């Protein structure tokens, strides 16, 4: 694994290339924010319709401590739910790939559960695990993460090149060896795609379920409370922070993907 890095461009040019890649992104962001600010000031849009970026920034600065501690108590169940949902999804997918006859009933059940709206799940989980329990929020996130992870991983485990299967057969490999040496690594790209979907779903799941009780020091509660006051600049600050949490998790998954799948990552870099 380590020798591969040698064949990549050295740090200097790579860093420059990375900077060049981020310049348009930064520029776009600055232009958009300026346009947003200008439009609202120019057309005299009331705050409850849309606050300006400057107002949101001021609100964020003013409530920094509250927002941060609220975020912390939101992030915890998000992470726990993400881990539980993805482990569960991969585990069930492994079982289904081993016993394909189960795939129909299991998939139908998963669809059924996935259709249950958060507004139903959240109070149910509160009853099961207790309103203040971390598990009741994480459970909602886990259910939402489970579905895409299970469906995608199953596909990755079953979508094997016939030649690869034949090679394992010629080597007299047992079912367990086929699962761990071929199916699981083959499914990794699918797992990571699902995890990326899962990060945003986990954030949504936790924030919405926070409306249904539990600690008042939570991002979902903060946003709802500020919107009701109504202090929309503060509400928007909360919304943007929850977006940032989703973005951060997405980035973390992407990073993990690069670390765990060096072959895949390099494939992309070579193409771009």
């Amino acid at each position, binding site marked *: 694994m380590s020798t591969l890095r040698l064949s990549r461009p050295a740090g200097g040019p790579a860093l420059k290339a990375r900077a060049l890649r981020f310049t348009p992104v930064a520029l776009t962001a600055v232009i958009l924010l300026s346009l947003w600010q200008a439009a609202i000031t120019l057309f005299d849009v009331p705050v409850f319709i849309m606050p300006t970026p400057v107002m949101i920034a001021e609100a964020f600065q003013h409530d920094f401590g509250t927002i941060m501690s609220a975020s912390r108590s939101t992030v915890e169940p998000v992470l726990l739910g993400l881990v539980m949902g993805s482990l569960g999804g991969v585990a069930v997918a492994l079982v289904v790939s081993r016993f394909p006859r189960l795939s129909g009933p299991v998939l139908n059940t998963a669809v059924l559960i996935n259709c249950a709206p958060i507004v139903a799940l959240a109070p149910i989980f509160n009853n099961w695990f207790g309103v203040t329990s971390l598990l009741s929020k994480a459970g909602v996130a886990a259910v939402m993460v489970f579905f895409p992870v299970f469906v995608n991983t199953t596909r990755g485990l079953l979508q094997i090149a016939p030649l690869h299967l*034949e090679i394992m057969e010629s080597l007299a490999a047992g079912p367990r060896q086929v699962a761990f040496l071929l199916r699981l690594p*083959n499914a*990794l790209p699918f797992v990571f795609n699902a995890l990326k979907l899962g990060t945003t779903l986990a954030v949504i799941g936790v924030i919405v379920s926070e409306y249904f009780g539990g600690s008042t020091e939570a991002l979902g509660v903060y946003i709802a409370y500020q919107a009701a006051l109504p202090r929309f600049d503060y509400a928007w600050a909360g919304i943007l922070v929850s977006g940032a949490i989703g973005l951060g998790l997405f980035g973390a998954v992407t990073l993990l993907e690069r670390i765990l799948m060096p072959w895949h990552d390099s494939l992309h870099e070579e193409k771009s």
Partner: protein
Amino acid sequence: MAEPAIISVRGVNKVFNGGSDRAVTALQDIDLTLGRGEFISLLGPSGCGKSTLLRVMADLTAPTSGTVTVNGKTPGAARADRDYGMVFQQAGLFEWRSVLRNVELPLQVAGAKKEVHRAKAMEMLELVRLSEFAGHYPWQLSGGMQQRVAIARALSTDPEILFMDEPLGALDEMNRERLQGELLRIWGDTRTTVVFVTHSISEAVFLSSRVVVMSARPGRVAACIDVDLPHPRTAETRTTPEFFEKVKEVREALHGAPSEQAAA
């Protein structure tokens, strides 16, 4: 053929979709004895069942009737004992494994100790002259190099037999000839018995100690031609009158075969 038999095929038939009106007889009454240490080519037009015959020997397909003995056992037992290595038309490397780890795969499946398979895999990479690419990933290698890795992988458990199913078919002419030379060198170094499926007459003649010419629909053995060109065979071998003579003989056997229209 003075050597004792390592593979024997007796009265083998293979019918696909047997019993239905779409039944296809891929192999009919195949009798064949392969000596230890031989380099045998199965040559014939597409659809003559040469790959099917190889797959029957490798226990990847069961014959409809007849018996096959590989290394004194049933093909199934020979596969379980890892008596053979197999190379396919596509290298089929696992893209998530480095070159070295791809070569280690059969040893890992066979349950060898990690230190053992690391050393053995390095030795095999040396054999195919790819040691410096041990840490690379498959996508970083050319098609010819990938196929050399596949050969190293097939040989990593020191099998007595190497089954090759058109292994050079996907390569360009230049790479193909270079790898033919490599293959003869490896065969000379390891003394493995090689069964090599191809549809190229000159490839079969250049590589083999014996060419089994097959005819199509149904697949039968049309002729067995010994190739006694001296070793080592080099690029010059391809220009000698003896080589051309052999190619001509094999071609005539191919075209003389019944129900035969065209061959590569």
